[in-house]
């Protein structure tokens, strides 16, 4: 049913979201907001290029098109609030203030990455900025976020938690389970469904019986609101109001941001589920066009200043790539580090097994395992230089991987 009327059902004018015109904040805020969105856009474009060059492995999910949703949300957070996101979270880390070099280094699998090269694109983490993770399991972050909010409530702080996930996650069991518990226990949490119109390649109306996702948690006791995910000010206003409700009145809220991702689900997405026309229909709503245009029109920034900010973003991303390139890969001997917190219960005895070499030994003793073990570890690591020719060709085309 979907292909013929797909665009009609999903065009920017058919989302049910009314365009709002909020007054502009002061110049410094406008400038910082635009700069963050530009940084995310330029970072993601460059990440896509680095993926094509095979500097980045695995999956790469770009958030191009969702910058207003991300920056509007994070603008509404206090520094002490928590944020949990999905596998499409480079922008969230950047908006929270994680150094772009640490984000790019993580995508490169380098030791200076914000997760030490252990997590990759889908698992960014920055405890100092209270970004408690990107998560690779759809819907997996909702219970975690509710647990974080429970801790805030338990300890009597007024910290709130913002949990962001996609439209696809609303179909997971954890969505209903977590909504129920959050409402039941009056947790200081805001759930934000980033409705980018697709759960991977399945269009919203083909994966969810209720397409007004803001209503989807009401039956569990979590009221919802919608905002224009392409309007950074509308997102911020809506999320700020929801956070206030959650923080002060302990009434968890759901916010649906209606947005659009211009790139595929991941770099491995041939995008056969939508038309080029549909993507073009959404182009005029691009927040990286509309927001600066409004700032120029209102005389807050000149076109030249917008351009300078953008150049700064490009320069920052250049530096991030240089930083990531310079950073070494993690030491092979660190393979077993940090599986456990070493302490009273984890000390001498056998807690991990390394059976990669003939002399089977404790993983935690990898550093003392001898030459054969080291040679075999290096032999394994040397395969990192191999790339399957099909994969290489597909990446060069900007597709597969």
């Amino acid at each position, binding site marked *: 049913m979907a292909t013929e009327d797909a665009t009609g059902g999903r065009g920017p004018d058919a989302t049910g979201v009314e365009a709002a015109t909020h007054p502009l904040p002061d110049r410094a805020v406008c400038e910082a907001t635009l700069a963050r969105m530009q940084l995310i856009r330029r970072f993601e474009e460059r990440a896509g290029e680095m993926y094509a060059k095979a500097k980045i492995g695995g999956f790469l999910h770009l958030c191009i098109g969702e910058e207003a949703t991300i920056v509007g949300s994070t603008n509404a957070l206090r520094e002490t609030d928590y944020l949990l996101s999905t596998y499409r979270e480079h922008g969230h880390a950047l908006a929270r203030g994680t150094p772009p070099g640490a984000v790019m280094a993580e995508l490169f699998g380098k030791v200076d990455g914000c997760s030490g090269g252990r997590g990759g694109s889908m*698992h960014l983490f920055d405890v100092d900025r209270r970004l408690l993770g990107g998560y690779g399991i759809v819907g997996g972050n909702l219970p975690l976020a*509710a647990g974080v909010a*429970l801790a805030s409530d*338990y300890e009597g702080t007024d910290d709130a938690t913002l949990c962001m996930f996609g439209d696809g996650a609303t179909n997971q069991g954890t969505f209903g389970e977590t909504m129920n518990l959050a409402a039941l226990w009056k947790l200081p949490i805001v759930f934000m469904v980033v409705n980018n119109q697709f759960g991977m390649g399945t269009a919203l109306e083909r994966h969810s019986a209720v397409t007004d996702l803001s209503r989807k948690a009401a039956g569990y006791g979590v009221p919802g609101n919608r905002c224009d995910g392409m309007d950074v000010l509308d997102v911020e206003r809506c999320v700020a109001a929801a956070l206030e409700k959650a923080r002060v009145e302990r009434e968890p809220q759901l916010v649906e941001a209606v947005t659009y991702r211009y790139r595929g689900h991941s770099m491995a997405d041939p995008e056969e589920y939508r038309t080029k026309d549909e993507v073009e229909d959404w182009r005029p709503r691009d927040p990286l066009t509309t927001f600066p245009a409004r700032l120029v029109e209102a005389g807050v920034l000149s076109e030249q200043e917008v351009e300078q900010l953008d150049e700064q973003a490009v320069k920052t991303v250049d530096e991030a790539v240089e930083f990531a390139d310079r950073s070494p890969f993690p030491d092979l001997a660190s393979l077993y580090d940090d599986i456990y917190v070493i302490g009273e*219960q984890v000390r001498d005895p056998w807690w991990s097994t390394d059976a990669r070499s003939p002399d089977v030994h404790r993983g935690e003793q990898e550093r003392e395992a001898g030459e054969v073990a080291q040679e075999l570890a290096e032999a394994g690591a040397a395969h990192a230089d191999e790339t399957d020719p099909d994969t290489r060709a597909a990446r060069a085309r900007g597709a597969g991987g």
Partner: protein
Amino acid sequence: MRYREALNLALREEMRADERVFLMGEDVGVFQGAFKVTAGLLEEFGERRVRDTPISENTIVGMGVGAAMAGLRPIVELMTINFSLLALDQIVNSAASIRYMFGAQVKVPLVIRMPQGAGHQLGPTHSHSFEALYQHIPGLLVAVPTTAADAHGLLKAAIRDDNPVVFIEHETLYGRRGEVPDDQEPLRFGEAAVRREGGDVTIVGISRMAETALKAADTLAEEHGIEAEVIDPRTLRPLDLDTILASVRKTNRAVIVEEGWPHGGVGANMSALIQEQAFDDLDAPVARVTGADIPMPYSKPLEQASFPHEEHVVQAARATLGEL
């Protein structure tokens, strides 16, 4: 003191000692726990710290992980180990992985308690033994206490530790009595208990099977003149392999007894470790006695026939000595 009372005492002591420790699970509060392990805790600690949850296993465990990341020390009770399968996503993808995949920026001091085991005619969705499943997962600690003292001491240790712990109790053992020393300090993970000394064959019993192994050892001594050394590993991660190997080097024979399934079981792994580390000391193949390779049947004779009893262990031990 009964095993369940020892667990209750450990919970009570640790909750008194540390305000960050709290308990949540299905029917742990007003109902006092499906197996009464949490009896009286709601009364003492109130609803903030003893939290009845909806029946939402995956989310309860996930919330425990989130709360632990944010600085609390949650204890989550799951009603049976079979129900923990609904929470496998959060146990494996979150609890076990988070510290490693986020470059050690946070820790997950979470205890997930669950009872296992057959013998109560609860059929194939409430009777299984999954310690093999949980010992498989790096990032988790796994405890399988069999005595009241171990239940108390290991639970205290689990609650105080900074790692996620899967704490596997046994439904049959809840009513068993045993001495718990006054003011017992936490026991240490990774320290096996030698329940009986002997020089002829080493029998390693997992969870309730440590008890079965002891009974078998008595029979072996009385009826066959065989002196078995019985080892209860008490924890499977970390594993006190040294104690097991020292015993095998003395007896040159090993029998591993578990209630769970044979394919990929605890015994499968342990026999691999033993032959890798002590091949030259073995005078017979390492023997395994496991549960039957089937979903647990309801019918009482079928159920009893499908998990190891002392007769099975006696036969296996004698076989390693060439008596059969």
